[in-house]
């Protein structure tokens, strides 16, 4: 039971990441390869504020959220003024910079050894320590991300995002400041990813840079593409599929080295298969790259 709850917590954390990335990829049509960087900023802020400064967990969560949103503007403001391709390249570069910062700024992050002993959060005097507690927290972050993305993707705001995705020129011709919309959406997405990172940090009580590599970003992109861009329910399904799949592989008794490689092959095959036979993903509304 404990193991199932553990997998459910991980699936929820990745579902939050996938929903928030879908706001950028599926709803707005921008490709970001930096989601793991924002995830890491949330995780490291939470860890360092509590372990190094002795501040409450919530201060670290809030700092991570603000830092991610602020840093997202630094990345997106210059690149989004150019073409969307530059944005994808800029986010890739940013992802590499953040990972290397986590890995090499040892005086702050403890480098590859990571940060230990991240305390568990206390809510109304009750310490969250069991996996079931964390499942509640991680499901709450999924609900929060889902609600925010639904709000921003519907009504007048959502219509502008649809226009940016399908024809940015049309949105501009109708008087919409598309740059402002893209900056806001990217900042909100980054902030939500940082909350997922904070949840991960307090859940595992240990973080190291290996959880925030470009491969993690690609994994979350895969969840969005497989689940279906533009559908929060779809990307949740994508996240659950890609979190549960390796666990199933583990149960069939393959050596861990083989199953790790097999996992990458399966991800790749799934992506190719989806692009060929179901470009809208499992439950998606739009084809990726439209």
């Amino acid at each position: 039971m404990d193991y199932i709850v553990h997998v459910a917590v991980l699936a929820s954390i990745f579902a939050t990441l996938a929903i928030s990335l879908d706001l950028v990829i599926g709803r707005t049509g921008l490709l970001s390869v930096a989601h793991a960087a924002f995830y890491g900023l949330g995780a490291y802020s939470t860890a360092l504020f509590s372990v190094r400064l002795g501040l409450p967990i919530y201060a670290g969560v809030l700092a991570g959220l603000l830092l991610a949103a602020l840093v997202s503007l630094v990345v997106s403001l210059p690149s989004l003024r150019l073409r969307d391709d530059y944005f994808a390249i800029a986010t890739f570069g940013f992802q590499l910079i953040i990972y290397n910062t986590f890995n090499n700024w040892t005086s702050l992050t403890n480098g590859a050894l990571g940060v230990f002993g991240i305390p568990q959060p206390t809510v109304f005097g009750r310490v969250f320590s069991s996996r079931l507690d964390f499942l509640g927290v991680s499901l709450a972050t999924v609900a929060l991300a889902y609600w925010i993305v639904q709000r921003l993707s519907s009504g007048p705001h959502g219509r502008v995002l649809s226009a940016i995705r399908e024809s940015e020129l049309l949105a501009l011709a109708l008087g919409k400041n598309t740059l402002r919309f893209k900056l806001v959406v990217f900042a909100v997405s980054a902030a939500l990813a940082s909350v997922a990172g904070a949840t991960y940090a307090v859940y595992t009580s240990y973080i190291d840079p290996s959880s925030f590599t470009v491969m993690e970003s690609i994994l979350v992109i895969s969840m969005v593409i497989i689940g279906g861009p533009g559908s929060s329910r779809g990307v949740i399904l994508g996240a659950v599929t890609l979190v549960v799949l390796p666990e199933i592989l583990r149960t069939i008794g393959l050596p861990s080295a083989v199953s790790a490689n097999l996992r990458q092959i399966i991800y790749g095959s799934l992506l190719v298969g989806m692009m060929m036979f179901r470009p809208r993903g499992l439950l998606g509304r739009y084809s990726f790259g439209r």
Partner: protein
Amino acid sequence: MSALRCENLVKVFGGVEALSGVTLSFPASGIVAIIGPNGAGKTTLLNVVTGFARPDAGSCWLGQSAITGLPPYAIARAGIARTFQDLRLVGALTALENILLAFPRQAGERLFNALTGLGIWRAERENLARASKIIEQVGLGGLGETAAGELSYGQQKLLTIGGCLATDARVLFFDEPVAGVHPEMISQIVDILDKLRDSGRLVIFIEHDIDTVRRVADWVVVMDHGRVVTVGPPTEILAQPEIMELYVV
């Protein structure tokens, strides 16, 4: 008084002058057709006026305000709406939603309002009523809930005109509004343009279909090789055989 003025506009693409010192002054209202062969600079002029291309020299004025160098969205907000030759719509949204998208200054487009819902619901109700009227006005009654991507080509053209109307712009720039459209629908579009004349707006349209120009335009601008060749009423301009032979394709 002139609603829109262009002075000495120059635009060069890779050594080719698409606009070579275009100076034009448009009336405050009425319908102006811009004609000329392919490559005359008609669409480049439209792109420069609406901010989608930066002129290498010259300036544009909307009333007393200089609009040269402003981003397209700022020019649209200042009062110039446009359509595109290659139809641009949000195919996944319904026809009504495409009209709703075009309304200016919507509170629900701001992050705070989008998240809290403040000031949205009432405005949406009012906008929906206005959008339904525009849908009727452009002859798409009964198709409001149809996805824009599923409309016929002619219906999509009507929808793009409807989108321009929703912007409340006083200058409407249409790029080939009847090109590729069924003759019956051409009459429908001409009727809409006629009604726009009565609304006191300035309508400028680029067109190759001379019958449409003759039927609807109050004024004709002939362009070639990035220059304005002649300007005048259609009865005068379209009666010149050299214009018909040389510039109209």
